[in-house]
């Protein structure tokens, strides 16, 4: 690939120039200047304005988000991060983000736990097992899954899927009671649980993980794959020795991107969960609230309510921001991720 061309006034270095030498015959690098045309100036003006606009707007958004949530923080201070109940209307108002955060993270973890093996499987199949037309078809399928609005997933999950999963939840609660998250109270309802929400969200997260890991697996150097096969390895042995280690960064990064998406999922969880803040690890029972689902349920109240919701939203934004940034770093640092667009 050719060097990036430069037209700003940067002097070209002559190859025989010794830095710090002064140059025997007084040879110095020449300044190379290019005079921009009027069209160039207009172009630079438009693009820079666009960039500046975007920069300013989005930064302002960030600032306003902060300002708007100030009222909430002024009212309850740091206890926002330690309280789990949400009683806005009582005096004094007591509210905090913990119940919401716990629910958000639990649902996201369930979703990602289901989505990672399925997504990696699908990606491996597409990159290493499928042939021509099947591959194109499956890639399209994965993209289609990503395009379907989460509203449709939410209503399918609420009206159809949840009733089908309830027997499974009941069985798990009865027979796997030794695993604490699976404990179920005798009279608890099971159709609005974090487990079901997690399953529905996993379908939305699956395409992201599958797409990123597929990208990464397909960049495995073919020489190394050939070498493993020529040594007497089976296909699976080759995948374990070459493809998976090479793609490790992509798998982790893709999973974190999926996690970020799951954290921010709104509509489906607002339909599926009762959205009452509660710190509970019992994923099979009814119960649980996520930040975004809660915001949808509770918006409208007075200034304080809005500010508090804004603060919760800010916390959520922080979580997704950190997750996405970590994912970017992991992917770009890994052997496989150098060329991958995230």
């Amino acid at each position, binding site marked *: *690939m*050719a060097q990036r*061309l*430069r037209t700003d006034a940067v002097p070209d270095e002559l190859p025989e120039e010794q830095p710090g030498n002064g140059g025997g015959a007084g040879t110095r690098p020449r300044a190379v200047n290019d*005079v921009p*045309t009027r069209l*160039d100036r*207009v*172009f630079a003006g*438009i*693009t*820079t*304005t*666009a*960039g500046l*606009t*975007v920069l300013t707007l*989005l930064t302002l*958004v960030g600032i306003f*988000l902060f300002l*708007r949530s100030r009222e909430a923080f002024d009212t309850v201070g740091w206890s926002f991060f330690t309280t789990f109940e949400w009683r806005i209307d009582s005096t004094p108002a007591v509210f905090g983000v913990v119940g919401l955060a716990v629910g958000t993270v639990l649902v996201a973890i369930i979703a990602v736990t289901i989505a990672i093996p*399925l997504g990696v*499987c*699908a990606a491996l*199949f597409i990159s290493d*097992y499928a042939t021509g037309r099947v591959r194109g078809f*499956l890639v*399209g399928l994965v993209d*289609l899954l990503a*395009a*379907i*609005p989460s*509203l*449709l997933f939410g*209503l*399918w999950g609420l*009206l*159809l899927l949840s009733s*089908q999963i309830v027997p499974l939840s*009941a*069985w798990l609660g*009865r*027979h796997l009671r030794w695993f604490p998250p699976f404990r179920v109270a005798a009279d608890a309802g099971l159709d609005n649980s974090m487990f079901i929400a997690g399953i529905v969200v996993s379908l939305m997260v*699956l395409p992201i993980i599958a797409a990123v890991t597929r990208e990464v697996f397909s960049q495995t150097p073919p020489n190394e794959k050939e070498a493993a096969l020529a040594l007497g390895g089976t296909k*699976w*042995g080759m995948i374990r020795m070459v493809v998976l280690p090479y793609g490790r960064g992509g798998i982790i990064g893709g999973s974190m991107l999926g996690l*970020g998406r799951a954290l*921010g999922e*709104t509509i489906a969880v*607002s339909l599926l969960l009762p959205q009452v803040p509660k710190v509970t690890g019992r994923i099979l029972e009814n119960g649980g609230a996520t930040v975004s689902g809660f*915001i949808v349920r509770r*918006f409208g109240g007075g200034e304080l309510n*809005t*500010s508090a919701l*804004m603060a919760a939203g800010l916390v959520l*934004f922080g979580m*997704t921001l950190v*997750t996405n*940034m970590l994912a970017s770093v992991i992917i770009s640092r890994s052997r496989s991720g150098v060329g991958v*667009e995230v």
Partner: protein
Amino acid sequence: MVAALAPAAEPTAGPAPPARRRPREFTAVDYGTIGGSALSALTLTWLIFARLTDGVGWLGFLVVAYVAFLVLFGLVTADRIGVLAAKDRLATVTITSGAMLLLAPLLWLVGYVLVKGLPGLRPSFFTHDMRGVTPTMPASAGGGLHAIIGSLQQVGLALLITVPLAVSTAVFLNETRSRLRRPVRIVVDAMSGMPSVVAGLFIYATFVIPYGGQIDLFGFNGFMAALALSMIMLPTITRTVEVVLRLVPDGLREASLSLGASRARTVWSVVLPTARSGVTTAVVLGIARAVGETAPLLFTAFGYQLINSNPFANPQESLPLFVFRSITQPQQSMIDRGFTGALVLMLVVLGLFALARFIGRDRTRSRRRTGQAPAMPTGADIFEALPGPGAPVSVAQKGS
């Protein structure tokens, strides 16, 4: 002097043409094992659940049967051809079936929406709003026209704001050398992770609450929804377009510059046209995403029962809002109407998706089949793309 090669021997009518073959990994015995294991797994699972323990629901049944199938297949194959080969076969079967599992929920979802929404898909759905419709009236009364108009207007406005800004910013990030690029890129990346609900909440708290009472423009209306949608679409479209621009080979830019075009002219006449289908695909996919967004609309457009064709004043309905509100009502007629809306929404998204794939298809494939080389841009192509006098501008005239 090169020695003359003896002419190749003519193929004689000798022995029969050789039997061509392609070695196969999975033999007939393997397929038989798969079938047998599947059958055994199903029977075993039925035995366990129907006879020995309480039921677990058909979903759980399938899960257990699937696991049993894998275990049985693995054991039988290991016994037949050894552990190493068995692991490989098992891996192939697992990965293949796991990938196919993707199909199942998608088909189920699409089928469900289709089945529930199709009965209500009448012309009246597209010509009526909910005027005068009471909860006791059947699902055939009323329609979703107000929602469709609202969606069209809101997404349309959002596009109007977002696309020029996003494309210009992408060009800024990829085609210029400004020092501002780094902060802009960081901010765009950060904002692309913003949950859509926060975007809606932001517009709500910044415009609607403080000024909505006094100024109609800042109240609940379609314009506010469009603003929220723009906040969500802008980072995504910017990043996708930037990727597309990066895919345009540098060789094209160099060719154009060496012909005497300025950098601006290069971008306008060479880079953007080359990236056109990619940019269009990015925009179409952005539309598909925006059409399905629900949460931000709750705080901005708010929803309304009747047609409101002025997005700049008064609450407006939109397709996802219509579906969301209808489905959560207790009356069956409302739910049915909601499903019809969901079907329309799904068809719109699928249609947009198919459009994006069509636009972004690999056109070189058709040329390869006819034997032509894939299209490499020649100097002539770029020449033609540059308007004005054909001769390159001389160095002395630049800058005028």
